[in-house]
């Protein structure tokens, strides 16, 4: 006889058994199937104007007027089909016709003007400060005015996602941030914060259709767990892979792909507080004392490139003649002696700060650098700062004597990289010379490309002599790709992660 109690137990057992036996639907992916990408952290909002970074969701849901080409090293038209300069401060953009947002709303000059007006009040607005306004000329022509000659404008515009005025006006900013609509190659489907975002191919896209029919972006915070998910066939591409896991991934038949990032790493040397670091010779000595090649080879498994300046090939204004400091500990000791600190005598122990896991191998790099500096007599003490604290002290200019930080070059123009170093610039800790400011600003505002390159070459020479930073390396973005992934042999920059050419097959 079944008492209610035993019946309940029985029911529980059946349910439990059902759970255990339920087999998952095995992902049947063919060309055009679902591409699953693992990354972390999640973005706090899907409003492209709420942050300055270009995320996976952003580059797929939205288009900008200008974009990066297929090899991510030159600017290319996107929603603007052409542009000309009417005068030094006015740019005229001809817009692509027949483009609609995912909800059917037409893309036109009004949408561009709305986007420019809106971004002024948003966190991303500081990137577009130089734009004084956008003026509608006709339905598909719009004029941008800047507060002075600004050759880097096109680069900046790669980060200005065009948003739909009608939709935002109708649903409001908050709803837009949770269910965005753009003109991009993928449409938004769903988002579970800190878990996953699902996108669907925009079948009415104005340009070449994306290869994958769906994209799922999964947030997996732990990097070992993310690679495990790849090995278990649960995800197709993993962002930011630890190079130490390479052999595990490769021996399972998958690939590790890397690509020079749009991000450079430096140690800033604070010359603004007096003391030994205020002497350019000491800062040069620090640059000579460090064996970058060895650190790149051992700590980064070779996945980094040496740099001599703030830019790299592909950036407008890059100086290909700039050469990095060589590793020369003898020269470093000589310079220290000249500056009055033979073998570091009379020098205090410098605080050397680094964030942890903000940049690949940041703490490990700081530790290696600290050893090299000790070799020539420069004593440092490593301090690891939580990122929030680091950022706050950095922006308030009360951070340590030496500190590790990255600078990214997404607009592919030298201006953003260099203008931070004018005397009252956010990244300046060494420059107190009005002539240097003049030079940097003249280069930023120079409209003649050859003259501009010359000016930036001069800036580089000053920079190297002043040695306001310890130039380190250009990082690589490292990815793992499942064997079934196609079109991902050349990787993408993590600061501009466009995957429209990637798909999975069985």
């Amino acid at each position, binding site marked *: 006889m079944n008492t209610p109690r035993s019946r309940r137990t029985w029911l529980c057992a059946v349910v439990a058994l059902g759970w255990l036996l339920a087999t998952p639907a095995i992902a049947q992916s063919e060309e055009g199937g679902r591409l699953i990408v693992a990354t972390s952290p999640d973005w706090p909002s899907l409003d492209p104007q709420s942050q300055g970074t270009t995320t996976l969701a952003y580059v797929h849901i939205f288009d900008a007027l200008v974009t990066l080409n297929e090899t991510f090293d030159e600017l290319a038209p996107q929603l603007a089909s052409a542009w000309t300069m009417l005068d030094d401060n006015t740019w005229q953009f001809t817009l692509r016709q027949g483009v609609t947002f995912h909800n059917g709303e037409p893309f036109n000059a009004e949408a561009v003007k709305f986007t420019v007006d809106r971004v002024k009040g948003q966190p991303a607005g500081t990137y577009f400060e130089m734009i004084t306004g956008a003026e509608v000329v006709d339905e598909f022509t719009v004029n941008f005015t800047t507060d002075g000659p600004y050759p880097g404008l096109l680069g900046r515009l790669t980060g200005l996602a065009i948003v739909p005025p009608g939709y935002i006006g109708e649903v409001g900013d908050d709803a837009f941030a949770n269910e965005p609509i753009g003109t991009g190659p993928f449409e938004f489907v769903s988002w579970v914060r*800190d*878990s996953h975002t699902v996108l669907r191919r925009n079948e009415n896209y104005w340009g070449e259709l994306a290869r994958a029919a769906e994209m799922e972006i999964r947030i997996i915070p732990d990097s070992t*767990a993310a690679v495990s998910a790849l090995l278990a066939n649960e995800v197709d591409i993993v962002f930011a892979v630890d190079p130490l896991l390479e052999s595990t991934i490769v021996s399972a038949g998958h690939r590790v792909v890397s690509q020079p990032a749009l991000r450079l790493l430096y140690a800033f040397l604070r010359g603004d507080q007096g003391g030994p670091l205020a002497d350019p010779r000491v800062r040069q000595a620090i640059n000579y004392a460090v064996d970058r090649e060895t650190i790149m080879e051992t700590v980064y498994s070779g996945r980094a490139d040496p740099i001599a300046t703030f830019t790299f090939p592909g950036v407008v204004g890059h100086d290909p003649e700039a050469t990095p400091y060589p590793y020369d500990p003898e020269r470093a000791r000589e310079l220290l002696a000249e500056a009055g600190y033979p073998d570091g005598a009379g020098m205090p122990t410098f605080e050397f700060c680094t964030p942890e896991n903000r940049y690949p191998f940041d703490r490990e790099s700081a530790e290696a650098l600290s050893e090299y500096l000790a070799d020539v007599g420069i004593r440092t003490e490593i301090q690891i700062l939580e990122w929030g604290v680091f950022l706050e002290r950095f922006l308030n200019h009360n951070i340590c004597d030496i500190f590790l930080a990255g600078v990214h070059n997404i607009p592919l123009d030298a201006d953003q990289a260099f203008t931070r170093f004018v005397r009252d610039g956010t990244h300046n800790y060494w420059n107190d010379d009005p002539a240097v400011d003049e030079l940097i600003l003249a280069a930023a505002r120079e409209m003649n490309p050859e003259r501009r390159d010359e000016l930036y070459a001069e800036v580089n020479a000053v920079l190297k002599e002043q040695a306001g930073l310890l130039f380190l390396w250009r990082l690589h973005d490292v990815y793992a790709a499942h064997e079934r992934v196609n079109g991902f042999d050349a990787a993408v920059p993590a600061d501009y992660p466009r995957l429209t050419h990637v798909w999975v097959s069985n």
Partner: protein
Amino acid sequence: MTIFLVRRTVQTLLSLLVASVLIFVLVRLTGDPVLFFVDDQATPEQIEAVRVRLGLSDPLPVQYGRFLGGVLQGDFGYSFRNRSDVGPLIGARVGPTATLLGSTLFVSVIASIPLGVLAARFRGTVVDQVIRLVSVVGQAMPIFWTGLLLILYVATRVDWVPTGGLGGPRHLLLPTITLSLYFMARLVRLTRSSVLEVLQQDFVRTASAKGLRDRAVLYKHALRNAAIPIVTVIGLQIGGLLSGAIVLENVFAWPAMGTLLVNAVASRDYPVVQACVLVFVFIFAVINLVTDLFYAAIDPRIRFS
């Protein structure tokens, strides 16, 4: 009983109020949130404008009054970072947190008590030693380590066990095992020692002498009398489970309250931090209350008045 409940409810409300003041002040000692909402090239004027927009330019008592007034009306404020009211943000995490805690509590209590009793019953034998060894190991292994081992050696090899992510019972399996192993270790050892202590008392000898079977002696007499410390520790340990779950959420990509709180702290998202901590305090207070009520159910001598 009613008086007891009223008194405890008032106590709970008071501790929530004290906690709200504490967390409100402490979160403001962690640093300036405004810098997280501007670009690194922002001017002082832009920074000030954001400060006003975030409501952080008002005096602290005004800000606290606004916060408390909101909470009393069920409004936990607005998160600028997430472009969303805090209520729905937390609402979405209550489910995953409750599921994980619930399944862990269920599994570890169901498994540890019989194991503990078994170890006590066969004290000094191989059974006892094996159980004790396993619990020491379970307690010694850090949660993230156990989790990663399970992912590497189980999830990548067994098709139907996912490596992580939100989902149904399959997704819950490894996180629950990981957290339960940690939780069970303590519970098994405690059950064993409590039962052993009771087994040495006179009434147990009497029960055996009058011819009761071992099972009945163990479960009806010994365990019942050993239950008070066990229930106390379960109640207290739920706090530990909450913090252990934060680590676990990261390893298994199970975004619950912990992930929300950690991200909010890292980005100085004050409204979310405040609300999360208040919810944690609330959970903890309720569990303490439930534990007290359990005492009366277990031990007829305890009557609340």
